[in-house]
């Protein structure tokens, strides 16, 4: 039988026959039994000093402390489609107001498809549509999921009507002169601009709230990233929707989305970099395993997409390629952040070590009366 689950963060489970270390532990002496902490210095041979992340920690036989979200891949897929819907509504409104019909059409249709996909993903996660309605009985400010549901509910009619107007526009003109299609297209031609602007108004909150959705949990790598994650996600949303515009619109209309692509990609990459630096040990899952591969792919795709977008002023083909790279990069970011969080919840290291570090630094918490 093993001893109590003492582990090295960088090694396999180890039993600690060392009785002394255990007995030195008394209340409040949080650091007493951890002579070497994460990021501490340790001698490696004569004269060579290395910074080693040697976080020693204890757990109940290596079992998780917090529970991972019981969500499947429809949630990161929704993070992506929600961002795409949000950004596309903004691009569509801009294109509408500045007279770029192809870009408007692409973005409105993209927003409509992304919205439909988002709804499907959420309903699939819940199991049946009627369960979505349970969330519309309350509005709860402390629940990002409740707030997000209302943002999506506000966004849907605007983006939906604008998208429908665009869909109807695809029907040959002589087939929608009278009858049901005729009345529908007359009504929609009146409301499509206000509807599109209405949808665009909900775009920014729709793109940002999903970061809070993840961060407002005890999942270490999600919670610790709460300062920068909203910027990563809005950058990612901008890059993805600009990417879609690059794919669907001719070169003479893509000026704004080329700028948006570069701006979004730079924001995402810079915010992501800052985020990792501010997360301490909980940044680790973003570098390891599948999440690590996804995050690396995201960086390469986003950077390449941004460069391509900037240079695509003359080449439609380059624009399409760059747009695809940007969209793929955005998807990789969402899946990477999602998976890193799940990993961080399943390993007690990411719960115990940061909490011990904070205790050693600041002592027990004391919220005032």
């Amino acid at each position, binding site marked *: 039988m093993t001893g109590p*689950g003492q582990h090295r963060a960088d090694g396999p489970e180890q*039993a*600690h*026959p060392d*009785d002394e270390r*255990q*007995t030195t*532990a008394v*209340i409040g002496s949080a650091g007493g039994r951890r002579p070497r902490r994460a990021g501490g210095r340790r001698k490696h041979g004569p004269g060579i000093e290395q910074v080693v992340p040697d976080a020693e920690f204890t*757990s*109940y*036989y*290596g*079992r998780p402390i917090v*529970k991972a*979200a*019981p969500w499947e891949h429809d949630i990161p897929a929704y993070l992506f489609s929600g961002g795409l819907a*949000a950004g596309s509504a*903004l*691009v569509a409104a*801009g294109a509408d107001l500045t007279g770029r019909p192809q870009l408007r059409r692409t973005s409105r249709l993209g927003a409509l498809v992304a919205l439909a996909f988002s709804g499907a993903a959420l309903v699939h*996660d*819940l*199991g049946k549509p009627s369960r979505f309605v349970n969330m519309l*009985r*309350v509005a709860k400010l*402390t*629940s*990002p*999921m*409740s707030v997000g*549901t209302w943002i999506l509910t506000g966004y849907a009619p605007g983006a939906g009507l604008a998208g429908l107007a665009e869909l109807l526009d695809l029907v040959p003109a002589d087939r929608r002169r009278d009858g049901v299609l005729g009345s529908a297209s007359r009504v929609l031609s009146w409301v499509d601009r206000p509807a599109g602007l209405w949808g665009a108004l909900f775009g*920014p*909150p729709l*793109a*940002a709230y999903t970061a809070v959705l993840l*961060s*407002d*949990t*005890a999942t270490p790598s*999600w919670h610790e990233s*709460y300062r920068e994650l*909203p*910027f990563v996600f809005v950058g990612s949303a*901008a890059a993805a929707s600009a990417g879609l515009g690059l794919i669907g619109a001719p070169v*003479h209309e893509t*000026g*704004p989305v080329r*700028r*948006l692509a570069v*701006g979004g990609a730079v924001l995402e990459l810079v915010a992501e970099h800052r985020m990792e630096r501010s997360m301490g040990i909980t940044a680790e899952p973003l570098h390891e395993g599948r999440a690590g591969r996804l995050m690396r792919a995201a960086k390469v795709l986003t950077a390449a997409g941004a460069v391509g977008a900037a240079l695509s002023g003359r080449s439609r083909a380059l624009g399409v390629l760059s747009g695809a790279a940007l969209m793929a990069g955005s998807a990789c970011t969402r899946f990477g952040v999602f998976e890193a969080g799940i990993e961080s919840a399943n390993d*007690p290291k990411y*719960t*115990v070590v940061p*909490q011990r570090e*904070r205790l050693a630094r600041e002592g*027990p*918490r004391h*919220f005032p*009366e």
Partner: protein
Amino acid sequence: MIGGRNSLSGPVDPTANAGYGDEHPKRKGFFTDTSICIGCKACEVACKEWNDVPADHFDMTATSYDNSHSLNANQWRHVAFIEQPKRLGSQDPGLRPPEVTDLGMPSVRPTDTAGAVADGAGGTGVGAEGEKPDFRWLMSSDVCKHCTHAACLDVCPTGSLFRTEFGTVVVQDDICNGCGYCVPACPYGVIDRRKGPDGAKNVGIAQKCTLCYDRLGAGQTPACAQSCPTQSIQFGDVDELRERANARVAQLHEAGVMDARLYGNDPHDGVGGTGSIFLLLDEPEVYGFPPDPLVTTADLPHMFRRASAAAATLLVGAALAFVGRRP
């Protein structure tokens, strides 16, 4: 109620904070004194029976005598077993003269406390001083903490999780939509979405300890506390339990058990104090508890500001992209 003083963090009466008037009963909770737990699992069984919680597996974890693994949707009480290469503080059956400290630890093996040799028990493996095994069991019956600031309740988008008049946190099965948001929100990993077994009620719905809401309503003691043969699980008013816990830890310190410590008793801590208080004999993480838990919604105002700034950045950025120079 948001906006109230300390409504997201800090000391507060959770029942009043949830909007109950002055007439509500006193806050109820547990004091679980793990120093006298014998690991009999009576609490686990009583909870399953009373609350009709389905069994879903029965296998050893292979790391200790734990066969119920963790708190989850089908396990509302969980007894943790920890084997440590460490000498017991002291165990005494209370059969010797009164000058020997009695910690109330049920035991059949007389052991030495104050340097006196207890060698009357030849053959039990406990011989003269120095031959005592450097080995101890820690057992602890874990349960939902019924936090003052309950993250599960805060993030629930349907209002299924609610604060009862007893200050406890309960899921309403018929309102929960199975979104699972409460699961990653709980800083203790307590609540979970029921995965099975097939045919059990409430599959797909979040489930956890209700602090026997039905029994409380009838003025009864929760099933687990009622069944505990050593009174390791004590039920009562949280105010009174906090005092009892302080007295018990002082008693153990006096007896030389300096490892004894309380967990969750401080209303100033990261969750505003828990309704379930524990007395532990080692650091919290040894038992699978987070050492420094924080209700995630304590940071929510900050998260909200960051997200608003990010949303504004996106809006301005998109606008600039369109008003910028024409290509």
